[in-house]
């Protein structure tokens, strides 16, 4: 039982990170109906920018750890957002209105380009960061198997919940969220009633990139090791999470992320760590076979 609880905590942490990336996928899919395969690379760039920011601030974090965290978070969100914006502007906007496959191939191309760009500019070696936040607390004092949660895990879960709440308010309460939902339903009609579609799509990419940057920073802090290739698997997993929750649905993306994280952690804990990705994808296949629109997705009406 204690072991199970521990895996639950680990899975929840992992799932929070996947969920943050998955929101970027699901938003972009909802609004322009394409799979943004380069989103995993945006996450990787966010991780690299936060690593560099931490290195510049120095091992002490410039005096106060909390302040350093805030500064790094802001810097990496801002600079990664520029990457998200430029990605949409360069690779996707010229292809809007062309066949779906064209945009998809452009996305895969951008994904490979960004991977190689970081590999060339930052080197192919694995980058390690000394732990910034250490320590934790023991939840259950069991001599056989104490259940512990580290402060880093607490921070990840709390930040994710706060961001989700803020994001939910943004989507449901603000003019931007309204424009976004309008574009999701019908882009032409939204443009006719005065919604600036290009601006809304750009902002969607910027928001997705910001959430990916947060996830990247948390991975940098949590694992302490990143390289230029982390975006690929994280991207596939997060996309799996988005599909699992029903693509286009933001609560679904978060839920899918947590589910994927839990499946991975429990599978690694009880069966084998090598096949944890296989487990995650198998669950995805099973869910899709029995519920082809994901857990919270709306059934797609095929227009003939």
């Amino acid at each position, binding site marked *: 039982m204690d072991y199970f609880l521990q895996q639950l905590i680990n899975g929840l942490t992992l799932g929070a990170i996947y969920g943050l990336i998955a929101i970027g996928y699901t938003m972009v899919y909802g609004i322009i109906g394409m799979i943004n395969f380069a989103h995993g690379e945006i996450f990787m760039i966010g991780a690299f*920018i936060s690593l560099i920011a931490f290195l510049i601030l120095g091992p002490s974090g410039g005096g106060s750890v909390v302040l350093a965290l805030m500064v790094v978070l802001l810097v990496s969100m801002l600079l990664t957002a520029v990457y998200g914006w430029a990605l949409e502007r360069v690779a996707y906007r010229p292809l809007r209105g062309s066949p779906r496959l064209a945009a*998809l191939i452009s996305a895969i191309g951008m994904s490979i380009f960004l991977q190689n760009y970081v590999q060339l*500019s930052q080197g192919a070696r694995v980058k390690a960061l000394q732990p910034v936040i250490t320590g934790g607390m023991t939840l259950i004092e069991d001599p056989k198997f104490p259940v512990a949660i580290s402060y880093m895990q607490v921070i990840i879960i709390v930040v994710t919940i706060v961001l989700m709440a803020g994001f939910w308010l943004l989507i449901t309460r603000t003019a931007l969220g309204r424009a976004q939902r309008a574009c999701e339903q019908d882009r032409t009609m939204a443009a006719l009633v005065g919604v600036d579609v290009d601006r809304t799509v750009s902002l969607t990419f910027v928001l997705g990139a910001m959430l990916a940057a947060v996830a990247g920073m948390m991975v940098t802090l949590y694992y302490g090791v990143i390289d230029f290739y982390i975006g690929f698997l994280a991207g596939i997993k997060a996309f799996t999470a988005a599909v699992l929750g029903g693509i286009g649905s933001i609560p679904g993306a978060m839920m899918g992320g947590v589910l994927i994280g839990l499946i991975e952690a429990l599978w690694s804990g009880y069966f084998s760590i090598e096949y944890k990705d296989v487990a995650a994808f*198998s669950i995805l*296949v099973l869910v899709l076979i029995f519920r082809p629109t994901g857990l919270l997705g709306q059934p797609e009406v095929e227009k003939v």
Partner: protein
Amino acid sequence: MTSATAAASDDDRAGLVRALREAGLTAAVAAALMLPLIGLHAASQSTGIVIRTRWPEMLIAVALIFGGRLALALERGGSPWPALIGGAVAIAAALLVPLPGEALVGLALIGGGVLCVRGAFSLARDWRGEAAAAPAAHLAKDFARYLPWLGAAMIVFAVALPLMPFADRRLLDLATLVVAYVMLGWGLNIVVGLAGLLDLGFVAFYAVGAYSFALVALNFDMGFWICLPIAGALAALFGLVLGFPVLRLRGDYLAIVTLGFGEMVRIVLINWVDFTHGPDGISGIPKPTLFGLHLTRRAP
């Protein structure tokens, strides 16, 4: 008269200001993009990671981008000369001035080339009027008529390639790879092009074919010509097994599930060490023979 020239020069100035603003914005975005990953470098050292800077490279790149965008904006505004001259200067600088970094040389060369082409095209259009675009369509039609002949010529070339004097090992290996990719492209065209199913895990079948040939040939001591249909049949069987559950899905769900399957096959092949030798791969696969002739790379 004077008022007309004044208005024209006002127009010019407004166009220049607009072009300058556009170029400034582009340069600012480029600077923001390059600041963390080009300007700063987390270099791995034996003692750990240190931050190095590459400000000169980054500044030169931003300046190149500013100039290029300015010339492009002016070209769009109707004055092709800045693009032509700027492009030529960029190419000359790339060739003559020792720029720090190969990427910068590439940027200057490619950017300069694009500028020159754009400038030359717009100059040609100015001279010949709007009809300059028409010959392109004509050219495409001619090309389509000669396409079968071109294909036949290329097949002849492919057959004759190993006998050419310039055909060395590297070239022949490359040509073999090209033909293998052509075959992959055919297969993908059946699934994606003709059936319209976006299959992102297509390479899984490539892996199944390769591994089934290698394992059957090694474990059952069979020759290439028996293994060839067996490998094909096994890959087809795998496709059938995969198709039953997956083809209930459509569109992007199909895409992600096939992507997941492709990844699963890779992970299983890497981790199932007893069966596939894992990341070491399988070596010592017998070479194919043709009626007793050994098709090895060099003469026996």
